[in-house]
């Protein structure tokens, strides 16, 4: 009956959700490990780089407002080259979604369900993800839209309640004999924003004909700001040395909060419940874009798309459980992001360049 289209606000929510994911749980540890107390500065510069990296993405969306990335890729690079270029992206998004499920599984085992087998957690999480992906892009956006305020409120409250525990001395002196390391950590800072490239998969479903560039930019800005604030606050609360040793500083941050007239004794366990929807949203987005790419690579249409998502019901848990040791998962995840962001950061500019040249040639003709 009615056309199922997205509102500009949903573009912003999808951008934020695509970027956050499990990264918000580990970004502080990663940044402080790379740049010490000045990790937040590297992160700020990394965030700025992401804004620059979004330019070719926006350009592509302007050129092809009614197409998503796989369709644009095939149109610009041709059938075979396009499909070939999409394969690494597809592998990346599948592995990213799978490992995200594994990491949240680890977090839940650590803070909430110590006796439940990891496979059960991962499989049930993936089943819920596939159920949503199967419902289509509009329902996906609506669900992400609804859960967005939940975890955003949780994050804001966490920051507010952590302030009394913060010690300014832990973050000072700024850039003291640390400029080199800080500069070196800019690239790891960028790694935390791999989700910036997910939005061209959704922009073509926008209700209005006008491209929602502003919501996209705001959507990029929110995670940058959140990452910086959380890195600053965790550094101030724990200090550099402790933060290097903590794998999931956000969860430990909730542990550090004390309610004197407490209703809840273990806030970190309670807060872990709020990270589930956040990670869920991110996995859903990456699973959806995986399905889209697989569908285009193999020219799957109609009901076949449903079966593609059902295939991921087995593939994602398999990817998640492929690494036997828990400790190696984070390392693999970080390495994957390195490779992923490298590929994405050259993929979009090249695609935009070829698309621009092609358009110019067509115009001249």
């Amino acid at each position: 009956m009615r056309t199922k289209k997205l509102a500009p606000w949903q573009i912003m929510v999808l951008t934020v959700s695509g970027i956050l994911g499990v990264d918000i749980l580990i970004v502080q540890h990663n940044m402080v490990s790379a740049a010490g107390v000045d990790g937040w500065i590297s992160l700020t510069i990394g965030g700025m780089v992401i804004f620059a990296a979004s330019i070719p993405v926006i350009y592509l969306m302007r050129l092809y407002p009614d197409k998503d990335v796989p369709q644009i890729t095939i149109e610009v690079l041709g059938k075979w080259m396009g499909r070939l270029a999409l394969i690494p992206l597809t592998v990346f998004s599948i592995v990213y979604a799978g490992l995200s499920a594994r990491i949240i599984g680890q977090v839940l085992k650590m803070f909430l369900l110590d006796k439940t087998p990891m496979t059960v957690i991962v499989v049930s999480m993936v089943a819920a993800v596939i159920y949503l992906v199967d419902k289509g892009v509009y329902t996906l956006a609506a669900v992400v839209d609804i859960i967005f305020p939940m975890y955003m409120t949780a994050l804001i409250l966490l920051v507010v309640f952590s302030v009394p525990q913060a010690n300014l001395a832990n973050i000072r002196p700024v850039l003291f004999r640390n400029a080199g390391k800080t500069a070196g950590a800019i690239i790891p800072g960028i790694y935390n924003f791999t989700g910036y490239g997910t939005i061209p998969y959704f922009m073509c479903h926008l209700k209005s004909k006008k491209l929602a560039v502003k919501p996209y930019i705001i959507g990029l800005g929110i995670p940058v700001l959140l990452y910086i604030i959380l890195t600053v606050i965790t550094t101030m609360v724990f200090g550099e040395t402790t933060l290097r040793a903590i794998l999931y500083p956000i969860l430990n941050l909730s542990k550090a909060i004390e309610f004197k007239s407490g209703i809840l004794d273990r806030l970190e366990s309670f807060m872990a419940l709020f990270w589930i929807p956040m990670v869920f949203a991110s996995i859903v987005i990456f699973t959806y874009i995986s399905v889209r790419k697989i569908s285009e690579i193999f020219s799957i249409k109609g009901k076949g798309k449903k079966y593609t998502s059902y295939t991921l019901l087995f593939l994602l848990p398999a990817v998640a459980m492929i690494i036997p040791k828990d400790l190696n998962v984070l390392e693999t995840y970080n390495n994957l992001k390195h490779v992923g962001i490298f590929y994405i950061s050259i993929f979009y500019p090249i695609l935009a360049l070829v698309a621009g040249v092609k358009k110019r040639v067509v115009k001249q003709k």
Partner: protein
Amino acid sequence: MLKPIKRLFTRNKGNKGSKSSGINKYNPQTQLDSRSPQTLDDSQNQQSEVIYGQKYINIKLTKNLKENLATIKGAMNNNYDIKTKEFKLGGRGVFGAVVYIPSLADEDFVLNHIVNPLMIQSSLILDREDAISFDTIKDTMIDAEYINEAESLDQILFSVMSGDTFLSVQGYPKGLIISTKGYVGRQVSEPQLEPSVKGSQEGFTEILQDNIGLLRRRIRDPNLVFEVYKVGQRTQMEVVIAYLRDVADQGVAIETAGRLSSLDVDGIQGTAELGLYITDNPNSIFPLYQVTERPDRVARGLMEGRVAIFMEGGAEALVVPATMPILLQSADDYYENWIVSSLLRLLRYGGMLISIFLPSLYIALAGHHPGMLPTKLVLTITGARTGVPFPGFLEAVIMGATLELLQEASIRLPRVIGQAVSIVGGLVIGQAAVQAGLVGPIMVIIIGVTAIGSFVVTDYSLGLATRVLRIPFMILALTLGGFGLALGALVLITYMADLESFGIRYIKPLSPYRIRDLKQTILKARDASHMNRPAFLNTADVQRQTKQRRGK
């Protein structure tokens, strides 16, 4: 020779034109182009499209009165409730007869306003030695709401069975259908399921005309249109769609008309049952339409740009589209200050969440994550559960099942006994179960609060849905603890986000966010600043009021 009615009914096998069934055929394009409002009176005047058994169309009356009466009575299986009265007209041995059903028609009217005038006035004509013509009878002798000529049997049968009277005159192969409907029905009374503290105390009745009148009294706008459809091959019930032509989304009106027209069922007996036939998703446990017995709520719905559906014999109206936030509104919200009403609406959301999640939350916390609770509370819970032989889940299941039994029993029993059941169940069984050590007192409190939570959900069907959802969440809490609850909630949101009510997403305006709509549906906007109708309803006329009043 007439065939038995049973064999004469033809089933509608797909869209094969008007030939196949007795219901109006729907064509969105033609509906759009030729949407002249068909009033109730119009529909009664145009009953020719009603096919009461396809083959009756071709059966025409003859000039022989006796033969005509035999045909009509034969078609109605000579039922004892069919009454015929023959009388003499004029002075040339011309006879007339009326056919009606006393239980449906106003018999006094038939005798005093049809039969008597015909007999008396025809005597006057006899004095003048004029011949009585059919047109004279029609134009000068009878005074009724409507008088229509009829020739075919299907028209006559339907009219008589709807409470009208058929007048046949010797020598004419046609007759008159005279409006004499006089159903005996319930008086307008207080709504049973939706009482209001400050609002109107009027509720719909089972008589369609009365319900239409209740609505007309509230909206005196010529753009309020009523379109009539016939539903049920055998029951031929009148179903009326009401909407404000210049406000409602025409798409919803067309869709509603389409769904009603495409119904192919032998009979539907109530408005709520009709809702199940035209719902977007028959498998949804959530109600995808609003069932209300309050005229003020229907009027408000129409003013918002929604469409109402009435059915003959139904004491409720359906209002579509209905989204979850709309279903959580109450009639009294509009009679209270916006701050109070907003808080009450939020309270209802809280009640719904409590109704779904509280028992499962208890199971998850007590069973999987006792460490999340303060030590003192854990000790209290543990102390209260000492001696209880069942695990928390089983305890919750036992008490939950008892609660459901009590609720069902109190509904089915007469009101006085129902209250007694509630007291026996709530106080006696609960207290006895705790004293016997079968359940802990905390669980009784949990189930009690859960029940109260479900009672604040204004829509009965939505309340039932929350009761159904309790069970899977309890199982999830038992197996996966808090993670199971979070995951279950995500699946529930997905399920709800995918539902649609007449093309409108069930969760609107929760997504996409629109502050204006959220202010009007989740909360209640200050009446003076409630400038526009909810945007998610895609109304034709957006503006509700032009000037914002800011008080003194």
